[in-house]
């Protein structure tokens, strides 16, 4: 989180210091359907951006374009200065520098927890096994489930699985963490433990883009809140500004429906 004394630009395209993520006039079409229209967004280092909006507004599509799970059709996306294009080398590098946590966890069921975490560092960064396992145990301590290392994902609860997923992404030491509705598939009593983990991450200075419905999290942790509807960014602001004093009608409508 940035120092809360700094003024935060309401405009999505202004940031203090380095922009880790830059999206310029990005469009995305699924056949005839326009999922993203003229997206302009900059995310600064160590900033926590929370994206909210009704379902179908393009929130997931936006962050999935950042690590090329979806291909954008127009505009530019830059991650840490690297342009996201058809260049294989760029794509691979961007995927190494970003980590993604999915709504349905997507842990690999045929590998143990510790193998899930060490897989990418060993295969992609060519880390030796001992080093990778040490790193994995350290991360499991950080997410507070070191005792589950030898178990298989399906033996864990939903909350534990998601925390393992977070550890798995962190093992690649990414510059940015992308969260796609990380708590939406969890039973209510497990949402807290995952949000706590995410709050720890934010406190430690990780750059995060989080798509979520958890307004409490947004209020507490976000540096900026971005509201999307119908594939466009409607309004951006600090949490205080956003929840107390929304400007756009669409924003007001959405907030009235969920709060």
């Amino acid at each position, binding site marked *: 989180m940035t120092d809360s004394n700094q003024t935060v630009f309401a405009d999505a*395209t*202004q940031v203090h210091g380095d922009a880790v993520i830059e999206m*310029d*006039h990005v469009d995305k079409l699924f056949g005839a359907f326009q999922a993203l229209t003229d997206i*302009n967004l900059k995310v600064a280092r160590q900033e926590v951006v929370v994206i909210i909006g009704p379902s179908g507004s393009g929130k997931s599509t936006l962050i999935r374009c950042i690590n090329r799970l979806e291909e954008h059709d*127009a*505009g*530019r996306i830059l991650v840490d200065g690297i*342009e996201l*294009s*058809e*260049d*294989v*080398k*760029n*794509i691979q590098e961007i995927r190494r520098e970003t980590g993604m946590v999915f709504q349905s966890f997507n842990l690999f069921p045929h590998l143990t927890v510790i193998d899930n975490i060490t897989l990418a560092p060993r295969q992609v960064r060519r880390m030796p096994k001992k080093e990778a396992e040490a790193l994995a145990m350290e991360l499991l301590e950080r997410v507070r489930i070191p005792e589950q290392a030898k178990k298989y994902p399906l033996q864990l609860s939903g909350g534990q699985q998601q925390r393992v997923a977070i550890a798995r992404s962190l093992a690649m030491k990414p510059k940015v963490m992308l969260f796609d509705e990380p708590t939406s598939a969890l039973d209510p009593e497990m949402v807290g433990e995952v949000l706590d983990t995410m709050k720890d991450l934010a406190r430690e200075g990780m750059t995060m883009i989080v798509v979520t419905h958890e307004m409490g999290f947004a209020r507490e942790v976000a540096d900026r809140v971005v509201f999307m509807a119908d594939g466009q960014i409607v309004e951006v602001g600090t949490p205080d500004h956003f929840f107390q004093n929304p400007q756009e009608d669409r924003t007001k409508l959405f907030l009235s429906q969920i709060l």
Partner: protein
Amino acid sequence: MTTTPPQVARPPLYRNVNVLKWVFQLVVFFIVLAILFWLANNYLTRSQDLGIPTSFDFLDQPTSFDITGADFSPAEPVRNAYLVGIGNTIRISAVGIVFATALGILVGIGRLSRNWVVNKLSTVFVESLRNIPLLVIMTFCFLGIVLQLFPRIEEAWNLGGLVIVSNRGVSVTWFEGTTVAALLGFLFLGVAGWWLIARWRRGVFERTGAPTRAGLLGSSFLILVMVTGWFVLGATVTTPEVAGRAVAGGIRVDPSYFAVLVALVIYTASHIAEITRGSIQAVPKGQGEAGSALALSGSQRLWFVVLPQAMRIAIPPIGNQYLNLIKNSSLGAAFAYFDLTLVAQITVGNGKPAVPAFVLALVFYVVLSLITSTFVNLANRHFKLVER
């Protein structure tokens, strides 16, 4: 702050994802092509060395063999023999499919019966036949039953004066004076009439609520049409009788055809029975319960709720069994049934080039399979549940 229209840096070709995909495809394609070329080259050069022709000219040459059961002379060109073979394959497949489906569905329902005897008997039928190779069953039917069990012509079994069984074949009461095609024509008319009657009665049911009785009316109409057709065409019945060392009258089902057909039917029926049972069991139990809650009787539940849904599930796997039956009919060649495979085999045995002869046969089987698949897919689409 306005941004200038974005300029995308073009990546070098060797790192471009799209280019790489095409390069990969082309490389694999050319490797496969190279392998095929090498194989073809081997084949052509060695055939040339041995003086074996590699074209399809053999189709116009005389066959030099007879085909039992068809009037076919050795002077006719090979292509005619192939046509006879295809006809025989289609004949045994079509008849086999009809009988196998009927028997299979009956046994499948039998496996779910509450009658202990019927249940266990069906289970034994299915579990024993499913696990024995078809060739073993066919060999047993031919060498064991027909040649072994069936009596010699002098002591032929006479079943009610309608069927005569011996190791020369089975002669069944049949009709004469007209063709199968003509009778099928009348059958088609009768079925079409039944369908129209069913539609009319359904309209009546919707307007007035009176029971449709479509089955009763439709089947009566069908019978009426068939009987009329019989007399119009001047058909008569012929019953088989033993006359010396042969059987006169009736239609003779020759031993190979009989054995192969029986084996195909019971083998395929055992698979269809499993599919039927599985699909009825796959209909959620709640469906039957909902039917009971709506005061539908047992047979109404079965007919209106369970069977329609079971059929939807069953059509693709049963269609697959039909394809298997068609392919399995090729085993008839091992028992002197003149299907397409035996024709090809004997053609090659008489010195015609092997690869073109067999490849032609394979192509026909593939085409036959594709045609059958298309019909099955049509049926499937017709019965699919409409979803969101």
